[in-house]
Structures are given as C-alpha cells and as structure tokens.
C-alpha cells in the first residue's frame, strides 16, 4: 500500500512540473517530446506483447501508416492536388495557422482510423495463429510496408515526402507545441490503457496470455479479443506516427516511417526492460532507455551503442521480468508470505 500512495503523490507533484518543463529547460524540449513518443510506443506494444502475451514485431507498420496518411491529408486538404509532373518529394506546402492545425488534426485522426482498419484486416488473418507463429508472421510486416511505400509515386516513393512547414505567426513555437501534443497523447494513452487493463476486456487479454486453451474452453472468443486489442494499439500508435512525421519534417519509408531497426525494436526493448505486462513498466522502460541512449550518445560517442547494449544485458540478466516486473514480484511475494503467516502453517 505504501508504494501506491507514494506513487500517486509523485504523479500529482510531477504533472505541474511537466507542464512548465519546456519553459524551465528550453534546450531539452525536443528530448522530452521524444520521451513522450517513446512512452506511447512502449505502451501500445505492451497491449498485445505484454498483457496478451503475443509478441509482435510488426507494430511499426501502424506507426508508418499513420505518418503517411496524415502527411498526405495535410498536403492535399487545402491545396489543389499535386501536379503529375512535379517531383512529389520536393513539394513543400505552406499553410496558414488554422489550415495547418485543422489538417493536422484531421490527418492524425484519419491515420488512426486507417491503422485500425488495417489492424482488423491483418489481425483477422494472422491473429488466429498461436504464440511464436504469430511473432514470426509479423517479422515481415514492417519491411513489406516499406517496400510498398517505396513504390507509390503519390507519396514520394523511395525519396519520401516533406510535411507542411509549421506556421510562423503562431505564439507557441513548433517544439513547444509538439511537446504538449505528445505529452497529452501519452497521458491520454496511459489513462485509457489503465482503464482498459482494469476492465473485463483487460482481464480477458490476461487470460489469453496465461492459458488460451482454457479461455477458449470457457467461452471467450479469443481471436476477437486479440484483434480488438491490436486495433486499439494501432490507433494510438498511428496518431503518434502522424505527429512524429511533423516533428521530423520529412518522411522516408525505410529510415523514418517503417523504421524497424530503430523505433520498431525500441518499442519492444522498452516494454521488456520496464516490465512487460504491467501498466507502469513500459513507461519506466521508455524513460530509462531513451535517457540512457541520449546520455551515452553525448558522453560516450563511438561506444554509445556498446554501453546501451551492455545496460540492456545487465537489466535482462538481473531483472528478467523488467524493472517494474521486479517490483510487482516483490509485492506478490510479500502477499504470499503474509498469507502463509496468517494461516499459521
């Protein structure tokens, strides 16, 4: 109980600090923005990967799809389509402030909706597979998506496309605006997921993780639950993708949108480091991994990846259930010893 109270206090103290953070530490605004992004990535991966026990290597697909759908809508919503003779990767759209924000909002939402549709279609096909078979099946998803995107001229093919320039006449600067956007997205994702994990639906996901045969024999339509869980993840992940495309200002199919080796792997590593299958685990994991990555990169340039790898190995060896998984395990252990004392056995 004590840890719970402390944690809640910490959150209430933390929220106002976070809100004024970009004013206090203007140099770190982008860094902090990326931490929010990472939290969303780790949280959404954990819905299927941790809570349901279905490791997916293909979630990056939804991230990229959200990014592209949003970018296309932002480009075409207020401008009269693209000239077929123009090189798409060189089109730079300038929008007025209201046009920019309206098209961004519409684009992000549309990206989320498209990602949900994709998750339902893909999920109905491959989520009938159990455990490792599903994991292997998702391995190629991101790569396939990148290949497809590289072949479509309308979205700049292999050269990618440029997202609209942030309007200059807005009081809030671009960096600060996106800091708050992603802070809000991370907060909403966290609160929504917290509610889900406490609901009937969340418990059904856990049941699938622990014993899918049993869940099925008790009348739970497991595939439907898995597809629904994946779709919820895809929605938030796609919105994050839409935002990241705008923060970077440039979209490329292999390096940014469907970046398996970076974003795609990080989201898995962060969730596992922090403790998969717990609510706070992915949040803690995202902060630890991203901050260490930045610190190592700053102070150990050249050896930074070695240091990061070493840190991951140490955490996995000494905390196999992740940082927060270890905390939960201690709590459960205390409960067990307490109950045994209570029984007088």
């Amino acid at each position: 109980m004590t840890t719970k109270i402390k944690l809640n206090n910490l959150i209430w103290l933390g929220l106002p600090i976070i809100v004024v953070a970009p004013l206090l530490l203007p140099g770190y605004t982008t860094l902090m923005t990326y931490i929010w992004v990472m939290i969303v990535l780790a949280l959404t991966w954990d819905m299927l990967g941790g809570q349901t026990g279905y490791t997916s290597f293909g979630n990056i697909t939804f991230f990229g799809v959200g990014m592209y759908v949003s970018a296309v809508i932002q480009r075409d919503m207020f401008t009269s389509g693209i000239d077929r003779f123009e090189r798409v990767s060189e089109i730079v759209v300038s929008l007025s402030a209201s046009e920019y924000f309206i098209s961004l909002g519409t684009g992000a939402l549309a990206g989320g909706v498209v990602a949900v549709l994709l998750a339902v279609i893909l999920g109905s096909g491959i989520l009938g597979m159990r455990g490792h078979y599903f994991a292997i099946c998702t391995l190629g998803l991101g790569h396939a998506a990148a290949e497809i995107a590289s072949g479509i001229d309308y979205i700049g093919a292999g050269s990618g496309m440029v997202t609209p320039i942030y309007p200059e006449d807005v009081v809030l600067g671009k960096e600060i605006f996106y800091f708050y956007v992603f802070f809000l997205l991370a907060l909403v994702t966290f609160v929504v997921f917290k509610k889900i994990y406490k609901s009937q639906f969340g418990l059904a996901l856990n049941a699938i993780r622990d014993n899918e045969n049993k869940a099925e024999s008790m009348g739970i339509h497991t595939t439907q639950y898995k597809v629904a869980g994946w779709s919820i993840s895809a929605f938030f992940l796609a919105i994050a993708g839409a935002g990241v495309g705008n923060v970077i200002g440039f979209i490329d199919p292999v390096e940014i949108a469907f970046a398996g080796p970076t974003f795609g792997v990080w989201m898995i590593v962060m969730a596992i480091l922090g403790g998969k299958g717990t609510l706070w685990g992915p949040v803690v994991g995202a902060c630890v991994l991203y901050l260490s990555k930045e610190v190592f990169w700053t102070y150990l340039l050249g050896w930074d990846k070695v240091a990061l790898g070493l840190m991951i190995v140490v955490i996995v060896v000494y905390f196999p259930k992740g940082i927060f998984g270890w905390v939960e395990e201690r709590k459960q252990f205390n409960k067990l010893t307490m109950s045994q004392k209570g029984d007088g056995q």
Partner: protein
Amino acid sequence: MNILTVKSVAKSYGGVVANHNVSLTVPQGKIVGIIGPNGSGKTTLFNSIVGHHAIDSGEIHFDGQEISSMTIPKIARLGMLRTFQQTHIYGKMSCVKNMQISSDIDANWRSIFSPFPKEVDEMADELLAFVGLYKKRFLLAGDLSFGQQKLLEFAMALMKKPKMLLLDEPTAGVNPTLINGLIDRLRQVNEEKGITLLVIEHNMRVIMNLAEHIYCVAGGTMLAEGKPDDIQNDQRVIDAYLGN
C-alpha cells in the same frame, strides 16, 4: 429427457483409431461416469463432445441442438463446460481474477472500459468459499497446490452457471482428505444447482460412489454400460483392466 446424446461417434488420428462407434446418453440432472484403462479414448471422446476437434462421423446432440460442428467457445456458451486432466488455470492472475473472467462476460465494446459488476465479485467470493479457497483468494492461482488448482478450476466452471459439466479425472493428484470433500461438493452441485455431470475417473471408489450410471470404454469402443454394481462384476470390464 437426455441432455447429451452421442451417436456412433468415430475419431482417428492418422491411422490410430481413438474412438470407434461410441454412443452414450446422459439424462438431465444425473451423474454419469466414464471409466476405462489408460489410452482407451476417454479424453478423445471429451474433446469430440466439446468441439476441440472435428469428428469423423456420428452425431452429438446437446440440449436439443446438433453441436458436432460448432466451435469450442460457442458450445461453452450453450452451457456445457469441461475441466482438464492437467489443471488449466490462469497462473499469473489472482484466484479472484480467475473467477471474474470465468463469469458470463459481455463481449461487446462497452466491456472494454467497464469493470466487473458487483454481483460477479459476490458470486466469486461465494464459490471460492464453497470450494474452501476463500482465504487464498488474492494469491496467484499458479502459487496454489495442484489439488487447490483443481478446486479452483471446478469453481471457475461453476461461475458460468453451466447446465452440464464434463470433468476429466477431477480427483487425480488430489490428496485423499480433499477427495472426500470434492465428492461431497460434486454431489451438492448436482443436487442443489441441478447441474448434470459427466465424469471420467480412474479412482473406482470415487466413481462407484458418485455415478448412477457408468460407461466403460476400452480400445476406443464402448465395452459395457450399467449400474455401478453391474459394471464392477462385469467380466469384460475386469478383463479390460487386467489386460487379458
């Protein structure tokens, strides 16, 4: 009135015939037993009934419906549940959560955000007390002993308010003192809640006490059926068990 009718069901795995021309009927509200040597096809028969695999030929009727081509969750929702020989519980969830998820939950979009209603929690507590696990309700199900897990699995099945339970060796691996309690509870459930039971059991003392009618399966076919006393004295049954 028969709640379950199995008509000449056959099932083979490749060249191995696990069930051949197996028929049985279970009357509403009764306790029926299935015995037979190891590998005689009892569990295969259970798997066929609950829809775990398609049958090669034959018919299975439950509560007036042909169910042999339905999926597992659909049959479960009709009110027929099975427990497993090896315990199948949700090991990393507490006993209470195991019970909650076993209740009849709505699979609609609203369930994504709503927790379990109070009635479910009350029913879970009541049933956990019924099987004697109330004190352990906040422990992880995986930390319980094997016998306790069997009791939990039994209680979980009751959460669904089933019409019929298929129990695959409910007393295997349970210590002798717990077995007596378990038999009492099985009988209580049958009498008070009117749940029909179909029980596979190796423990002769248990099954002869519990069941009103017994089927003996051997070598994949139905060898004999009758009242417990008749079965006990049937020469074919004795031969099958002694391996003649």
